[in-house]
């Protein structure tokens, strides 16, 4: 492997995060284990993320291969690195939101170190152009999350969540590795370009190759929590600290889907393998939509409701992936971006109510919120309407693009289930809204903490989601052009 100076120039956004992330750890070591003030630690991460975004902006999407074709800075990688970094920036103030709650005070530097590295790993997933680098990147983020989830102060639920994620994640990693080796045996290379180039022949001739790709799919679908690999998601996300759950449910989904798009769907794996696999994926999309939405219908815990609904949204996202063309890929990007913004915004509201618990709160505690805190009631309503896809919100346009893509492909029966899913979604997204606007029978004090940092995040995300809804057309157009330019 030959290294050139240019490789390092192009990967500046990535290695700079790694360098920055050591800063809090080193200072802690120098200060003999004394914890820095959380605000300083967070600002280090903030500066680092901002630096990476600026670096990415100035680099542009060059389609440059770096480190002997291991990584590639193409359009989705470029766009989603920025988006993921932005999601990271939005999560940082949430970590500050409740001191001594999200993470044990003693380990704050370590936590932020892991968080920065997980963002780096997520970007790396979107950059990867090789099965090995993809595998390493996925393991990289998994390691960070295995550690971060139980670090959320010593509580039983978070440790349970961490352990569950670790065990199941390891199984998924093993399946991924197995699939990877099968594909290597069949194709003789780890390089995406080589595999994709031969995929049409290999899929028809080589059973091992199909098996390998299926294993890879299963592992990736596990990470995105598509039915039937969604069982771990509610427990794990509910057990982890709320900011972390918000970040994971939006960012991990986005970056793994980009990888899935690059590898499996652009490779024509689905289309080349004939009708049966296409139908299988269609059913997976519909089933996760139904399972997610219907189980959300019966949740009394607000956090769990949002988590189950994320399974349903993953169904919509997968719908976009079938036989991707320019339109549906841009729609997918729009969906991922808007969903990320909305989900973080909605999940951030949980932090006001949960008190000392991390496992979320009952829907009933939202009762009468409008009377006590009209601003938060209205902002949460806005985010929930976004999730439900009521016009004129960004969530509506995301759904509009998905439906239009389905119309273009003539997948009427999927469209039907999509509509039914939206209607079911309405039923449970309206439940918390109705509770917020009804008055409690007894005048009791609503449990509500003042968290200025969280409020800041909510206000910013509110403005961004407004922009996303009114600029939906422009953004979609711009993302379509992104593909045609290079």
């Amino acid at each position: 492997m030959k290294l050139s100076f240019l490789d390092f120039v192009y990967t500046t956004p990535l290695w700079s995060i790694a360098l920055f992330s050591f800063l809090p750890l080193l200072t802690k070591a120098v200060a003999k284990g004394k914890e820095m003030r959380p605000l300083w630690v967070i600002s280090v991460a903030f500066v680092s993320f901002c630096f990476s975004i600026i670096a990415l902006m100035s680099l542009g999407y060059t389609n440059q291969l770096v480190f002997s074709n291991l990584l590639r800075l193409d359009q989705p990688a470029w766009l989603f690195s920025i988006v993921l970094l932005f999601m990271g920036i939005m999560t940082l103030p949430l970590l500050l939101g409740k001191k001594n709650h999200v993470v044990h005070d003693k380990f704050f530097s370590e936590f932020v170190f892991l968080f920065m590295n997980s963002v780096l790993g997520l970007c790396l997933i979107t950059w990867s152009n090789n099965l090995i680098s993809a595998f390493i990147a996925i393991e990289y983020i998994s390691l960070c999350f295995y550690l971060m989830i139980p670090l959320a102060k010593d509580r039983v639920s978070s440790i349970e969540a961490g352990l569950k994620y670790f065990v199941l994640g390891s199984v998924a990693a093993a399946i991924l590795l197995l699939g990877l080796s099968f594909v290597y045996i069949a194709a003789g290379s780890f390089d995406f370009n080589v595999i994709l180039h031969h995929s049409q022949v290999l899929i028809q001739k080589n059973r091992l190759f199909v098996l390998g790709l299926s294993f890879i799919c299963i592992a990736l679908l596990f990470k995105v929590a598509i039915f039937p690999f969604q069982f771990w998601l509610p427990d794990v996300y509910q057990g982890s600290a709320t900011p972390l759950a918000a970040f994971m449910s939006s960012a991990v989904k986005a970056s793994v889907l980009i990888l899935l798009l690059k590898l499996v769907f652009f490779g024509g794996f689905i289309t080349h393998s004939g009708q049966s696999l296409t139908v299988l994926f269609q059913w997976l999309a519909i089933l996760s939509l139904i399972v997610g939405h219907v189980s959300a219908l019966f949740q009394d815990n607000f956090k769990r409701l949002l988590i189950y609904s994320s399974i349903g949204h993953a169904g919509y996202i997968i719908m976009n992936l079938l036989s991707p063309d320019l339109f549906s890929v841009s729609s997918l990007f729009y969906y991922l971006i808007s969903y990320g913004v909305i989900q973080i915004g909605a999940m951030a509201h949980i932090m006001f109510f949960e008190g000392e618990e991390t496992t979320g709160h009952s829907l009933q505690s939202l009762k009468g919120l409008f009377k006590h805190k009209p601003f938060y009631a209205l902002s949460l309503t806005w985010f929930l309407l976004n999730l439900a896809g009521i016009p004129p919100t960004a969530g509506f346009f995301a759904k509009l693009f998905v439906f239009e893509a389905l119309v273009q492909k003539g997948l009427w029966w999927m469209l039907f289930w999509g509509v039914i899913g939206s209607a079911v979604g309405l039923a449970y997204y309206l439940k918390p809204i109705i509770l917020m606007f009804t008055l409690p029978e007894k005048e009791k004090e609503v449990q509500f903490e003042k968290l200025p940092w969280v409020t800041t995040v909510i206000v910013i995300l509110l403005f961004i989601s407004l922009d996303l809804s009114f600029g939906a057309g422009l953004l979609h157009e711009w993302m379509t052009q992104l593909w045609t330019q290079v």
Partner: protein
Amino acid sequence: MILTSLIALPFIGALIIFCLSEKKASYTAVILSLGYFIFSLSLFFLFDPTNSALQLTEQRQWFPSLGIQYFIGIDGISFWLVLLTSFLFPLCVFYSAFGEEKNQKGFLACLFLLTGFVMGSFLALDGILFYIFFEGSLLPLFFLILLWGGKDRVYASLKFFIYTALGSLFMLVGLLTLMFLVKEQAGEFSANILDFYQLNIPFVGQHLLSTQSLLFFTFFFAFAVKAPLFPFHTWLPLAHVEAPTAGSVFLAAIVLKMGVYGFLRFILPLFPEASFYYAPWLCFLAVFGIIYGALMALAQSDFKKLIAYSSVSHIGYCILGFFVFSHYSLSGGYYQMLTHGLSSAGLFFLVGMISARTHTKQLDHYGGLAQLTPIYSALFFIVSLSAIALPLTGGFISEFLVLFGTFLADIRWVPFAITGVVLGAGYMLFLILKVFFGEVKMQNIPDLNLKEILVMIPIIVLIFMTGIWPNLFFKYSQKSLDQLIDQKGNYNLTVHSPSLEKHKLVSTQGNKK
């Protein structure tokens, strides 16, 4: 710019009101809404009644990749609906601005938002833009019912929202399909209604599964739920009973008209063959709704529910008028939208006024009101006469035209439709008998105050104006209605697209005449 400001001003008004203090908000809202009405009157000068085409259009690209535009305009069909909205809006605001409702500011802001959305959906000429306004109007109404509604408001608002939203989701699918059809036939995506009109939508073999009939049903569900047509009406009485007075007025007088308007704007011109083919079924539903609504109204013991069911009955005339395909009945159906808007608004105001005093809507609790509240009783008689469709009131003109047109085009429906008129007189007169005459069951009920009389006077003036001088109203809308259906009863639904003359359908009865 005038149409854009008609849509934008209510939203800006809502923002202003939300930022003001409780006390100031009431006065500002009244002034703003009144100013808005006067501003909307300028349409009389700008609108050219001799021109049947869409006027005052404004067009701007919005989603270039999907051909979604910001495209608004007005024609004779939407003209009176826009004015009806801007006319009832200050009345609703004035009525509720100085009431005792808690959180006045939010209530008024919701009314402003609702007006903006409704106005947008009447003016939008782009399918997706229409959908956004159509669906968006659910939100303020949902909150009006949820926050200021009666005892069972949670269930009512939820049912209202989910029922209507599910209907319009199917319409969204229909719209997206139409956009795709435009791409297939014209080469580029477009959600422009005028491009939709140019489409050649296959209706092969009058098949239930042909493209046109499937598309027809997607739109039909959305509008039939909203209108509401007979089997899809169950959300309406519930929503009406729980809604606050101004919400009920807006719901009955304007929001229902959005559904009926959808039939005129989308279903008739877009799916001529399917509408013609399914017309008997629609007429059946309409007539069934007329009788069913009237019978249900007869059986009600709740003041508001009675009037809600009478709405179901009256909306049936609109749909019947549209789908018997005669020139007269179409005009009558259109006119019914206006007159029902006025009479139902008046009735709901009056019910709100009396139940604010007595705190009950049960008819059994009322009796002998004519002795206690003479002014109230007089006003109620006048408005209910319009609902009964007595000559000199607007209701007479519209129902007469519908029945006359039906008589000419398809005589089978007439006996059933007439039953509705008789039953209508029945339930209104029984109501009057029960509430205003007989034994006096209540004491110390003050008569209407100046504010309430001021609210009612414009409505009553218009009820008589629509009855005595209908030509004033038809002058503005006739040209556009003639586009849908010409004088001889020829069903001429494709005039927007001369290239599609072959679709011109002939109503058999009309031609014989």
